[in-house]
């Protein structure tokens, strides 16, 4: 009986160790930043996800339209290192339009944060040599909807591509 109990306890311990070591766990918030109204409000929250052997860092972008008391998630970006929240990549074009970008994701609203158009660089670039290897380096969108978006390769060649838009959203390679 005692032998059976011991096996049971060891089994429980092994399961606990395995679960702790192999599965990601969310940790408390590492950092949070919120824009100041008068326009609608945006905020970015950084979480640490524990993985083996190294953590990942999750940046959750949320919006709260005027008249609403609920935060709605826009997009999530994941990095390998604990980097500062990229405040300069959260930009208001007017009191109805704003865009954000981080890693390979870009999001824009033109109706005060009620709905967002999301664009993912790695879903739009087909490069078999470097699959999933691009990040958004810079975006510039004008109040009339025209703009440019530059992506760069994470790899050694550091190649870049430029996209254009005329309506805030649809990106094409000129």
């Amino acid at each position: 009986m005692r032998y059976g109990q011991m096996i049971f306890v060891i089994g429980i311990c092994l399961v606990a160790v395995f679960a702790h070591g192999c599965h990601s766990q969310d940790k408390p918030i590492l950092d949070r930043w919120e824009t100041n109204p008068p326009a609608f409000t945006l905020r970015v929250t950084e979480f640490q996800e524990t993985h083996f052997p190294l953590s990942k860092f999750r940046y959750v972008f949320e919006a709260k339209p005027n008249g609403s008391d609920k935060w709605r998630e826009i997009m999530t970006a994941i990095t390998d290192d604990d980097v500062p929240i990229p405040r300069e990549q959260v930009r208001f074009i007017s009191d109805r339009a704003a865009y954000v970008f981080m890693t390979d994701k870009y999001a824009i609203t033109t109706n005060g944060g009620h709905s967002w158009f999301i664009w993912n660089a790695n879903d739009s670039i087909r490069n078999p040599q470097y699959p999933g290897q691009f990040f958004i380096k810079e975006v510039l969108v004008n109040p009339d909807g025209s703009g440019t978006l530059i992506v760069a390769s994470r790899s050694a060649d550091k190649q870049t591509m430029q996209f254009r838009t005329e309506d805030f959203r649809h990106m094409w390679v000129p």
Partner: protein
Amino acid sequence: MPHNRNLTLLLSEGYRRTLMTRERILGTMLSASNNGQPDDCLKLALLAYKAGQVFPGNAINGLLAGLTERSGVIGESDPNFRVGVLRRDPHFGNSFGAGGFIPMFQDNPPGNQVRHFVGWFAAGAFLGPRAARRALYREEQTSTMNDPDVALGMQAINMGFNFSKTGITRL
């Protein structure tokens, strides 16, 4: 009663020595993080050498706990004795980058490739190459060697595994 007192003295002496050892390597790591020279790759090599001196027989975990958020397979490193890991840590310093690593190991924008190397070096030593490689592909969501993190991780896993078997590792 005197036996207990001796034991307490012995334990506190052991604890004091452990703290002194950790403070010694912490100072070296912090100074490496804060100084611009040499480059990050050479800093890593020098810190590995120092860890071998300070933690004989346990250099891998000494490096892991000092330069990453991990300690051992499931433990968490002490924020007071690690450098360049989380920005809110007391000794974040200037962290580390990718300077001096060959281009195929350099992430763009530059990440902390010192932390990345040490994490996967320890994974290779603790888990063995097959399990560590599987974890690497899962974490990076790709197995292509065109990915700088995969390329560096593979190199680190092989070196960590060889080091755990022989105590020697070569590029």
